[in-house]
Every structure is written in structure tokens, then in C-alpha cells.
């Protein structure tokens, strides 16, 4: 499947969208009752809101309860422009979009520094604060004036179905934007951030920037929906524009219909909005809160039974995950001749690096030299600080003292994605794959750094996959069915995709059985022979002893020995670190 194929599918989707739009509007033409016409319009508006939520929360995983902030700002901008300044909604709505985007930037800068429930709670607070402010400003209820002469210039129409058409235009625009985002590297980057933000950053993705784009786009869509909503209803109140139900509906239609796919909110809105509105219409006078109850029940049922939404549940049922064919055994390579000791220059140097968590020194005055083209092992007992060391090299942690130089350039102070672009790749212990995407699509996120076009990125990804032995049909297999060994290889490919000159491997071999271990060792050696310097953290000593040219031993954050494996393993300090002081004292000659 070439790049053309990746994007070729877009035409098919356009077709479906067009068909949907035409069919929907045709249905609208058949409906005579103006109340049902209104419902049909509302479905489209809430679907659009759902897409706005999806853009921020569905794709990048930052759960937002605050879409109402942008919705309300869009609606009120349009309304105030109209009521106070006589500006037509045709201009007012885009103006609202602008306001929404500015608000998104203002909100995003501080709020993105928060995580998890802190983020969700603060997103909750913004629209509520705005609600109170607007109430206080005296905008309890604002009606948009009816323009009898020249209504079309003010986006007012006699036939309610015109509003439906307008809403459809907005929805289709939002759907197309979402479609493109999903298939673009922007969308893939967001997914990568959602899946494992540190891994995404280590692969060269500038996470804060991408998240900012996401919230801006999300706000634009929500503000447009808000402006249109106000235009349709002709009455705005703080409650209907900033209220909790707005944010909740945006979230619920997406969750219900399908998270992370642009059809999701459309399905969700198409099912829930008519249901709620009709029930409200029929029973509203007996059971006045019926809408809220419907949405509440919907969300509970969906979160228990199909947490990712109906779309995915159906798709998984109809197109079950295919298990990829197993990788043919790699033929045993001839024994690797010992590399001639060269005057290999150091490619990575750590100089007296210290990092402390609170009072505890996780890395204590560590100095280390990695020669170009070497396989350098980092070992040490549990809790010695090995992963912390990697995190410091990678840029996730800033050392308190010391310097780290890669090919002569100072790394300290640079962000992880910048370090990736300098030529350092890294694997992570916990491999989080996108289970519904192909191996290639999983790996391609690693190739974005430094490539201009998607075609280039795809080439790099395929090349990396070939290097690890996951070429041809394996590359297009769905990642959900991979074995542990294949997952490790995929992770390795992802790190190799941007063609790093230095590769940091974090426990790539942990827990593998004998055969899998040998295969991966061979692949690592092969990659090394192709010129990639490797630094590897491992516990399994047996494998490391065979693999590494040099070891450095960490204990309690300090580097206690460095050198060829045979020497290091006989070093008294090392034996003591592993087996304990008493062993040294008791056993007659520990250094045998």
C-alpha cells in the first residue's frame, strides 16, 4: 500500500460524506413538520459540537468538559455583534470563530500544563465562570431581532430547512477537516501523544505545539456551531450557551457514537438528539427533565458496554482483527567476528551528571563515554537509576549538574523532540501500540521528525521495518494481534525510522524466551553493524555479556565500573553491588 493508497481512501470517504449529506437533506425535504425540521437541524449542530470535542479529546486524549466555553463565546460574539452593532451573522459567525480560537490559545497555554483530572476539572471551570460573568453583565436573555426586509442578508430564512442546509454545510466542513486530520501526520501525532506522550516526544513530536493546534481547531468548530445555534434559535441565555449540558452533550454524542473517528459524533447525534428531543416534546410536560435523563443513561450504558463508542463496537464485530502471519525464522547469522578495537571517537559523553528527586540522588556524579559504533550496556541492580539516566539523556529530566554531549553538541536543556531530531532514538519498556492500526501506521509516527512529506515518512518507516525483519505483509498487519516479540521489533522499528545515529534501548530483551531473545539480539547486532551506536539497559546478564562491547555498571546512581564485560564482571565493586558485601567477605575467592 503506497502513499497514494493511504490517501486514496479519502476519495471514497468524500463520496460517503456527500451521499450522507444528500440523503439527509432529501429526508429533510420530505419532512413537513417544522418541529421535526428543527430537530434535524439540531442533530447537525450537535454532531458538529461532537466533532469539536473529538478534535481535542478524542484524538489527543485530553478529556475536556469545557467545550461550552467556545460554543458560548461563538454564540455571544455573533449575538452581540448583531444586536449591538447590526453586524450580520454571515460576518458575526466567523468573528465568533476568531474569538473562540483566541480563547483557546489563552486557555491552552496554562491548562495544558495540567494532567488527568486536574485538566478535566479546570476545563469544567472556564465555561461556568463565563456563565456567571455574562449573567452579571446583564445578558440574562438576549433575543436576536427579526429582519423583515432583506432577511437573507442576516442569515434569516422563512423555511426552517434552509437552516438545516446551513448546518449541513458546517457539519460537512467539520467532517472534512476531521477526516483530513485523521489521515494527516498531525492527527497521527495526536494519536501518538494520546497513546504515550513521552514516547511521542522522544520520536520528535513537539507535543505542546500539537496540542495547541488541536484546541484551536476544536474551538473554531465549537464557536462556529455556537454561532449557528444562536442564529437558529434566535434567543441566547448564559445557561443555554455556557451551561453544563452543552459540554456534556458534546462529550456524550462523541463517546456514544465513537471516539476518535469523525463518523462517531454524527452517529451519536443522529441517535441521541432526536430521541431526547422527541421524548421531551411528547413527555416534557409530565417529565420535564427527560432529556438529561436520556443523555445520562446513554453515557452510563455506553461506558459500561462499549467504552469506545458504537462505531468501534460495530466495526470490531464486523471486521475482526486478523492475526498477522508469524515471522519466518531468521537464518542463523555467522558468528560475529570481534570488532577491531578502533580509535573510535566518543559519540556520547556524560560528564559528572547528577539528578536528584527530592533528596534522593537518582543519578550521582555519573561520567560515561560511549564510543561510536559500539554496543554499550548499562547494567546495575534494581533501583540503580538506569532508566533515570536515559530520561536525563533524552531530555525528559534536566540534570542538576553536569553536561551531556552528543557528537560534540550539548544536550542539556534541549527538549526531547529536539534531541530526537539531533539523531538520538529511544525505545520504551512498555510498548503501547495502536491496536486497530497497521504495523506501518504505528511505526510511521516515528518517521515524521525531519521529513517534509508523508511519502518520505512512509519510505523511512518501511525501511526501518525491513531492518528489523517486519517487512512485506507483516507491515500491513493489524498491530492488535502481535506477539510480544513482534511488538518489541515494532517498537525498535519506530525508534529506527528517523535513522538515528544513537539508539537508546530500554530493556528491549526483558522477559523474552530463548528463541525470541536470540532473534532480537541478531537484529540488534545487525543494526549496529550498519553504523548505529547502541546503548542498552538490560537485566538479563547472559544476553548482555554476549551482546555488549562495553559495560557501565550503575549502583545507587553512581557509576562504579566501566569496561569490557569480562573485566567488569570480575570487578570487586561490581560483584559486591550485585551479590552483596557479605558474599565478598565469605566466599574464598569471588573473582574466579
Amino acid at each position, binding site marked *: 500500500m503506497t502513499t497514494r493508497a493511504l490517501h486514496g481512501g479519502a476519495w471514497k470517504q468524500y463520496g460517503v460524506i456527500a451521499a450522507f449529506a444528500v440523503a439527509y437533506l432529501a429526508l429533510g425535504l420530505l419532512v413537513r413538520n417544522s418541529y421535526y425540521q428543527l430537530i434535524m437541524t439540531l442533530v447537525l449542530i450537535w454532531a458538529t459540537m461532537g466533532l469539536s470535542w473529538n478534535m481535542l479529546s478524542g484524538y489527543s486524549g485530553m478529556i475536556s468538559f469545557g467545550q461550552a466555553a467556545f460554543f458560548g463565546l461563538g454564540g455571544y460574539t455573533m449575538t452581540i455583534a448583531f444586536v449591538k452593532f447590526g453586524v450580520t451573522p454571515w460576518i458575526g459567525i466567523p468573528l465568533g470563530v476568531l474569538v473562540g480560537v483566541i480563547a483557546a490559545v489563552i486557555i491552552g497555554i496554562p491548562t495544558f500544563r495540567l494532567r488527568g483530572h486536574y485538566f478535566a476539572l479546570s476545563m469544567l471551570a472556564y465555561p461556568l465562570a463565563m456563565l456567571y460573568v455574562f449573567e452579571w453583565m446583564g445578558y440574562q436573555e438576549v433575543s436576536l431581532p427579526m429582519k423583515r426586509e432583506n432577511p437573507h442578508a442576516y442569515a434569516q430564512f422563512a423555511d426552517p430547512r434552509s437552516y438545516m442546509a446551513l448546518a449541513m454545510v458546517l457539519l460537512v466542513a467539520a467532517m472534512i477537516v476531521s477526516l483530513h486530520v485523521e489521515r494527516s501526520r498531525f492527527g497521527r501525532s495526536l494519536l501518538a501523544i494520546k497513546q504515550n506522550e513521552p514516547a511521542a516526544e522522544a520520536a520528535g513530536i513537539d507535543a505542546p505545539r500539537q496540542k495547541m493546534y488541536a484546541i484551536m481547531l476544536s474551538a473554531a468548530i465549537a464557536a462556529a456551531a455556537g454561532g449557528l445555534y444562536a442564529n437558529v434559535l434566535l434567543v441566547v441565555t448564559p445557561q443555554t450557551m455556557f451551561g453544563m449540558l452543552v459540554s456534556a452533550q458534546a462529550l456524550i454524542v462523541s463517546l456514544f457514537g465513537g471516539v476518535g473517528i469523525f463518523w462517531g459524533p454524527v452517529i451519536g447525534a443522529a441517535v441521541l438528539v432526536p430521541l431526547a428531543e422527541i421524548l421531551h416534546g411528547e413527555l416534557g410536560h409530565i417529565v420535564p427533565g427527560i432529556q438529561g435523563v436520556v443523555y445520562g443513561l446513554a453515557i452510563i450504558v455506553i461506558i459500561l458496554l462499549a467504552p469506545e463508542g458504537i462505531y468501534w463496537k460495530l466495526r470490531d464485530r464486523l471486521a475482526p482483527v486478523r492475526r498477522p502471519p508469524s515471522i519466518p525464522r531468521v537464518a542463523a547469522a555467522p558468528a560475529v567476528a570481534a570488532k577491531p578495537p578502533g580509535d573510535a571517537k566518543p559519540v556520547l559523553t556524560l560528564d559528572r551528571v547528577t539528578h536528584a528527586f527530592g533528596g534522593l540522588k537518582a543519578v550521582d556524579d555519573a561520567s560515561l563515554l560511549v564510543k561510536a559504533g559500539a554496543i554499550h550496556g548499562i547494567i546495575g*541492580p*534494581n*533501583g540503580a537509576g538506569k532508566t533515570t539516566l536515559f530520561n536525563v539523556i533524552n531530555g525528559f529530566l534536566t540534570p542538576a549538574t553536569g553536561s551531556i554531549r552528543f557528537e560534540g553538541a550539548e544536550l542539556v536543556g534541549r527538549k526531547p523532540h529536539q534531541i530526537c531530531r539531533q539523531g538520538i532514538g529511544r525505545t520504551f519498556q512498555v510498548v503501547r501500540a495502536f491496536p486497530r492500526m497497521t504495523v506501518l501506521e504505528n511505526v510511521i509516527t516515528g518517521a515524521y521528525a525531519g521529513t517534509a512529506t508523508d511519502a518520505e515518512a512512509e519510505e523511512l518507516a518501511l525501511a526501518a521495518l525491513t531492518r528489523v525483519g517486519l517487512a512485506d505483509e507483516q507491515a500491513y498487519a493489524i498491530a492488535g494481534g502481535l*506477539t*510480544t516479540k513482534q511488538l518489541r521489533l515494532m517498537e525498535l522499528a519506530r525508534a529506527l525510522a528517523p535513522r538515528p545515529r544513537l539508539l537508546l534501548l530500554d530493556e528491549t530483551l*526483558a*522477559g*523474552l*524466551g530463548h528463541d525470541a531473545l536470540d532473534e532480537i539480539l541478531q537484529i540488534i547486532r545487525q543494526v549496529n553493524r550498519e553504523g548505529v551506536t547502541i546503548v542498552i539497559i538490560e*537485566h*538479563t*546478564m*547472559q544476553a*548482555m*555479556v554476549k551482546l555488549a562491547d562495553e559495560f557501565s555498571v550503575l549502583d545507587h546512581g553512581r557509576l562504579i565500573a566501566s569496561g569490557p*564485560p*569480562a573485566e567488569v*564482571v*570480575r570487578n570487586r565493586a*561490581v*560483584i559486591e553491588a*550485585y*551479590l*552483596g*558485601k*557479605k*558474599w*565478598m*567477605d*565469605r*566466599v574464598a575467592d*569471588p573473582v*574466579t
Partner: protein
Amino acid sequence: MLQIRSLSVAYGGLHALSEVSLDVEQGEFVTVVGPNGAGKSTLFKTISGTVAPVSGEITYKGKSLLAVPPGERAQHGIAHVPEGRQVFASMTVMENLEMGAYTRNGRARWHELLPMIFALFPVLQERREQLAGTLSGGEQQMLAIGRGLASAPELLMLDEPSMGLAPTVVDAIFERIHQIHREHGITILLVEQRVAEALESCDRGYVLETGRVVMQGTHNELMADPRVKRAYLGI
């Protein structure tokens, strides 16, 4: 007292333990040593119920332990002193010990156990109103052991008590553990990375490596055997 037969545990395709068998007789002090990643903690967690095995059997005092839900295993007389101590940091030393006595037996024998714990670890008595989170690493380890003892256990299991502690502190801790065994006759299963400290007081030991038992023997046999080193350092 405790019999493990062909225990296999896997996490998502990774074999943490493969066909591990071991025995602990009443009154014995048994040690399990091995390098990182050997599966020692997994073994522990399987016995205390945090992790479920793929296959194999654990029998305690003649009855299957796997049938007992994890929260109830403490009531059966098994005390677990976990890796990393896991004290209740926001509660005082005294409250931690009281929580240790949450079981029926613990409550019944509280009045004789508390003095015993304080005799073993005088520093706990000194600091009994202090918040556990403010104790030093060694003191927290003593607290964790004391908490284990407070449940009036028949089997005391300790998971890497030396982790993160300075060598002199480790010595002190192991002395106490030895004392517990010697003076109070409690059966002990100790899992440890530091070989000599662990083997020093034990009656018998097992060596784990990548999820398998690669050696077993008495105290004397293991102390002298150079193959133990190979299990750790590969050479």
C-alpha cells in the same frame, strides 16, 4: 507448610515464572535469591494473591491457597512484608502496627505481640507517634516487619528487605530477621537479591534465574557454590 508445585505465571506473553516448585516446612527459614528480573517478586505476589498464576498449585497447611481470596490470606496466618516497605505513610508508627493487627489472631494476641515488636525494634517504640512517611528507609523496613509480626503470623514472608537501604542498615535488619526466627520460631520465607545476607541465616535456599529454579540446597551447599555467582553475573 507451604508447598508450591509447577507454578507458572505470565504477564501478557512474558513468562515471569516457569514451572517453579519449592517447599517451606514449618519452623524453617527458607530463602529465594536471584538477580533482577528473575521472578522473585512475582513469586511473592502469587503467594499473596496479587497475581494469579497460569498454572500450578500452591498449598498451605494442606489446603489450596489459590482458592482463598487475596484479602483473606492474611487471616490464614500469612504475613507479607512487601517490597519497598509500603508503610502507611500518612499514619503513625503505632497506627501502622495496629493495622498489622487487623486480623483476628493479631487482635487476640496484641498485648503480647506489641512488647515483642518493641523489644526487637526499640526505635519503633521511641517513634511511635511519628508519621511513618517521615521515617528513614531502615526504620520503615523495621516498621513493615513489625506490622507483619503484629498479625501473629505462622508464615512471615519478606520481599527484598534490603532494597534501597545502606549496607550497615541491611546488616541490622537481617540480624533482626534471624532473631525473629531463632527466638520466636516463626517460619520465614525470604526473597532477596543480596546473596550472602540472605543465605547467611537460612536453613535452605533456592536460586531463581529468569523465572526458573536453577539451584537449590542447604545453607552450606549454597554458600560454597560458585555457580550462584554465575546466575547473577553471567560468567
